[in-house]
């Protein structure tokens, strides 16, 4: 059964692709925008976004809500976010399971939290507050990490599941981040996927990374690699049809290359889910 939230197969909307997205024939079903890039008054970014939003479902992906921070939630940011949600009317919005700032300084990075009971309470509370403020449920994404804390008393997936359950939020599962963290912390990525509470997974990210042998860095500047495609297949088997997209942020190739790469995801999903051939994207647009 394909659920109502399934949007099909999407891409991150990137500036070099604006014209191609609007003026070429392609089979990309939806687009994700980086929230902060559109928190500006107007000009080209907002102009193109408006045009894209007229024709495709949009979802918003933020990087700076800092749900894990211990300083108060930034209400000015949440108000901006609310305003943008009102303007763009996205299908949903997401941010990350991390903190991005402390001491009044913004790291502009997705910094990992310790996996403790304290942190679960704290983060779940903050996600609930944010959801209250914007008046809708959010998706929270798992991040890549390169270190663990001595005080962590559980696995990342136990932490992630528990936070989302207590906050009653949804999940944006980044398959590449699972792979990257699995390599960096030597756990089995399949254990992660198997443990995830499937009913909360609303969206999937796929991306490339840079492999340094002993460790892997989440750079979003390469194609999706084979082990990540294998994990994606496992995820589709477990979770069914979930809106899936590729994130590419650096060394951005021509739009058609990303469309080709997205078609790999589509093929895998169709192989695992015979029902998908019945699905028709016009249902989404209604």
């Amino acid at each position: 059964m394909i659920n109502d939230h399934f949007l099909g197969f999407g891409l991150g909307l990137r500036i070099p692709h604006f014209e191609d997205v609007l003026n070429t024939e392609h089979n990309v079903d939806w687009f994700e925008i980086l929230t902060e890039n559109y928190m500006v008054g107007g000009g080209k970014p907002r102009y193109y976004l408006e045009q894209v939003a007229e024709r495709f479902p949009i979802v918003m992906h933020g990087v700076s809500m800092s749900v894990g921070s211990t300083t108060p939630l930034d209400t000015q940011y949440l108000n901006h976010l609310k305003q943008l949600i009102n303007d763009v009317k996205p299908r949903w919005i997401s941010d990350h399971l991390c903190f991005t700032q402390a001491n009044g300084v913004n790291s502009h990075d997705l910094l990992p939290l310790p996996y403790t009971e304290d942190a679960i309470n704290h983060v779940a509370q903050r996600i609930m507050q944010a959801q209250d403020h914007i008046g809708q449920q959010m998706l929270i994404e798992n991040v890549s990490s390169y270190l663990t804390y001595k005080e962590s008393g559980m696995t990342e997936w136990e932490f992630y599941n528990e936070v989302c359950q207590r906050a009653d939020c949804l999940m944006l599962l980044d398959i590449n981040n699972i792979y990257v963290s699995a390599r960096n912390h030597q756990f089995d990525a399949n254990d992660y996927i198997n443990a995830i509470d499937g009913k909360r997974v609303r969206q999937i990210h796929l991306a490339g990374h840079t492999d340094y042998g002993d460790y892997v860095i989440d750079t979003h500047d390469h194609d999706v690699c084979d082990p990540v495609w294998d994990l994606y297949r496992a995820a589709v088997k477990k979770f069914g049809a979930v809106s899936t997209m590729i994130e590419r942020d650096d060394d951005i190739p021509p739009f058609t290359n990303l469309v080709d790469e997205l078609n790999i995801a589509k093929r895998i999903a169709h192989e695992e889910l015979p029902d998908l051939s019945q699905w028709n994207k016009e249902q989404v647009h209604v």
Partner: protein
Amino acid sequence: MSDLARLQQQFVAFLQGQQSDFPQLIGDQPPVATDIRLNIYHNAYRMRLRETIDNDHPMLGKYLGDEFYDILVANYIDTYPSKVKSLRYFCDAIPTLLAEQQPFIEHPILSPLAAFERALLTAFDATDASTIGINDLASLPGDQWPNITLSFHPSVSVFEEPINAVATWQHLKSDKNPPAPLAHELPLYWLIWRTPERLTEFRNFMAPEMVLLKHFVNGGNFADGCDALAEYLPVDEIPQFAVQYLQQWLTNGLVSKLTAH
């Protein structure tokens, strides 16, 4: 302070290169040494901020050359750590740093050059507004002229340069050697705006046009604006020049609203 708060403060202090106990909180996970793990974050922090400066200030970077640019980047990240959620605003204090820190302070072209680059960026994504054209002026009854006031498109700004920063920017932009820095006896004024086609434009303009524009920006009407021009133009030529300026603004797509009171 909670353990979680302390951990976060130490992490960010570590990213900023400050002394912190953060490494002691990290689990040992061979074969990758803790130092390497920490450095991934440290490098990512500096790289991301550096890329933001690269993107915002390409001409400044060209002018400085690698050696001085590296010093600028390092000093800027240390002196003005990001306090904002959007990297769009991270570089806002670059002109200030260039005007107050050695060795940059010795080169008075640098701060205005950076300020001009930022003024262009500000026009690029300023709030949208519709604009009116020259026809809206033609239909205005003659007796209403003295009382008209104008609202400008939000992208409109005036850049005042004490030194040949814009000429320097233009040379760098077209891959030519920049001219020698030359301070002006009186400041030059540049009008910056975004066209209805969403292109950022600028042009040099003289003191009387600038004075009239600022007069309208501050809410003044046409008649008082003409009075303000008496300092610059022969009295009998003022109305003719003032109407010309206005027509030019309308043609350039600078004016959002004309109100006849």
